[in-house]
């Protein structure tokens, strides 16, 4: 008790700095997003209209669903480049099914997409977790296998809007409780992810395996199973997103979502998910998703940006955000080290 008066003033700044480090990265991202919104709004006042905002949210919803899956995979130290092809495959299968059986209930279509996605994810996951192929190679290879499979089952043809029943398209256009279905699904997925990752045994295992696979194994966690499960989750969410995608754009094509994984990985990395695994937050992923969604939505709105410079700007913003994130993290780590009083 006698030592408390002297130790109290020392402890306070330490706690303060810890709070600042803990929330700083998300705050920086939030400020970045706010600045971006202001800049875009100033150059085109059509940005913050109710119509465009709802457009932005529905577009971002699909990215959000996928980002959660990718977050789980990256958390275990992996990567999944096959999700674009997964979206195309599930989207095509479900679209063909719906076109052949127009009376199919939309909910069953979504469950079908989920199931197919899970199977595809399980294949990639088995290659990574059981056969120990490096994630990038396994998913890159399977990406092309899935993509070829889409081509085979569709014969290279599209399933277009007039072949799809209204009930199916309503998955994306309709709303439940005054909220657009897509946005609702994204919010539900985010909430479940937040709960599972922070408060359940399975969720903590993903963190454990990602931050130190050996330590996790020694403490009795089956790393292989957790890794496999991560890809299954990713596959399932990609399958779900495939159905949402097809319902939203009312067309299924063999080249649907080609190269889309870059957006998703970028959303995660910008959101502060460490690509080496073991760290990251759902909140960060949400913000990263919002940033990517805003970039995608806002670039066509700015008249001075030509259609052809869009991808350059997109790439530069991703690169810039990744580098900025690293710089901020370095500073945070440095501060944490400095505050330690060794």
């Amino acid at each position: 008790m006698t030592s408390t008066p002297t130790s109290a003033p020392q402890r306070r700044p330490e706690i303060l700095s810890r709070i600042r480090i803990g929330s700083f990265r998300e705050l920086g991202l939030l400020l970045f997003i706010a600045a971006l919104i202001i800049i875009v709004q100033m150059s085109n006042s059509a940005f913050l209209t109710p119509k465009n905002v709802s457009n932005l949210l529905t577009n971002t919803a699909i990215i959000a669903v996928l980002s959660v899956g990718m977050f789980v995979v990256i958390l275990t130290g992996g990567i999944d480049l096959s999700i674009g092809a997964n979206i195309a495959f599930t989207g095509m299968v479900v679209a063909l099914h719906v076109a052949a059986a127009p009376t199919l209930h939309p909910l069953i279509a979504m469950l079908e997409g989920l199931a197919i996605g899970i199977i595809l994810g399980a294949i990639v996951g088995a290659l990574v977790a059981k056969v120990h192929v490096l994630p990038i190679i396994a998913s890159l290879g399977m990406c092309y296998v899935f993509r070829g499979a889409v081509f085979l089952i569709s014969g290279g043809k599209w399933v277009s809007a007039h072949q799809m029943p209204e009930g199916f398209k309503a998955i994306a256009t309709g709303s439940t409780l005054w909220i657009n279905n897509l946005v609702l699904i994204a919010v539900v997925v985010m909430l479940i992810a937040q709960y599972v990752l922070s408060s359940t045994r399975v969720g903590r295992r993903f963190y454990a395996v990602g931050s130190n696979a050996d330590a996790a194994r020694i403490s009795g966690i089956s790393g292989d199973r957790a890794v496999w499960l991560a890809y299954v989750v990713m596959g399932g969410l990609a399958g779900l997103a495939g159905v949402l995608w097809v319902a939203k754009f009312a067309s299924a094509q063999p080249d649907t979502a080609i190269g889309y994984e870059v957006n998703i990985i970028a959303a995660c990395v910008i959101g502060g998910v460490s690509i080496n695994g073991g760290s990251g937050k759902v909140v960060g992923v949400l913000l990263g998703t919002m940033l990517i969604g805003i970039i995608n939505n806002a670039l066509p709105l700015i008249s001075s940006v030509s259609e052809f410079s869009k991808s350059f700007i997109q790439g530069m913003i991703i690169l810039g955000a990744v580098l900025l994130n690293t710089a901020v993290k370095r500073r945070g780590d440095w501060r944490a080290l400095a505050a330690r009083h060794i």
Partner: protein
Amino acid sequence: MPMNAIDPRGVGSPLVKGARSLLSRYSWEIMLLIILALTNALNFSISPYYKWGKLLDATNLFLDKGFLAMSMTLVILTGYIDISVASTVALSSVVMAVSYNAGAGVPMPLAMVICLLTGAACGAFNGLILVKFSELAPMIVTLATQIVYRGIALIILEDKAAGKFPSWYPNLGWGYAGVFPVMMAAFFILFIVFAFLLHKTNYGRTVYAVGKNKLACRFSGINVDRIIFTNFTLNGLMAAVTALFLTSRMGSTRPNVANAYEMDVIAMVVLGGVSTAGGKGRMGGVLISIFIVGLLRYGLGLININTQVLMMVVGGLLVLAVAIPEMRFGSLIRTRKPTVPASVKA
């Protein structure tokens, strides 16, 4: 365990022993040669147009990727990866075409030099970021620069095509130097250079060392950053060489050329036995696998198999190449792991 247990590898005359050790050392390359033979057999059986006499011409269709595979081998050997190469090919090709055609225009040889410089600059930029931000994953950085480089190509040329090259330029991609195609001759010269660089020089040994253990290298005074930077710059330079030959073959260029080349190139390297974890693999294996992937695509292309399905085959091959050594029967081919006798286990 009885002490007089006989290692089967130790039996026989020195000649047999030597052959055995050679077999086990180059087992991957030997398997690749068998696959190459099987690929040829498959191609002969499925298409009447697949003939020995046409194979020299056929090399023009895939050896441009071979240039990239060689430098990618160095990058992957250090445990890195470069996904931006296809975009680098597109950008250097576009810059060359535009600088040749723009305004007064520069002479073609100078445009070609500009092409090489552009590629090297792209690679150097990747390398610089990866060296300065060493905690970033190479895949993330090169994924981003992939978008950026192709984005620049799009800004320069929009949706147009650029061509109108001098009449001698197509010879690079289609011409013959003596009996061999120009591209093939250039490929083999550069292959010898790269094989020498990797297997006979100090630099090559360092590449292996960095791939095995970066930290140990740093502590033993090896300039790891310089190796990585050089590798990426070389990779960009070779992407530009690919651009030279590809553009010559096509006669004109667009911002979307060389789409998904990185896939084929990485497949060639990994199938060639180079470990993506770094530090393991040889140039010879990559050489054979360049021909396997190339000839397979050529043969399947002859019977009008769709590009998407071709990609499917290459993708499957890529996964199999990495999966086979990891599977149980793979360990029989490669190395005998020391097995613990049942008595010790119990």
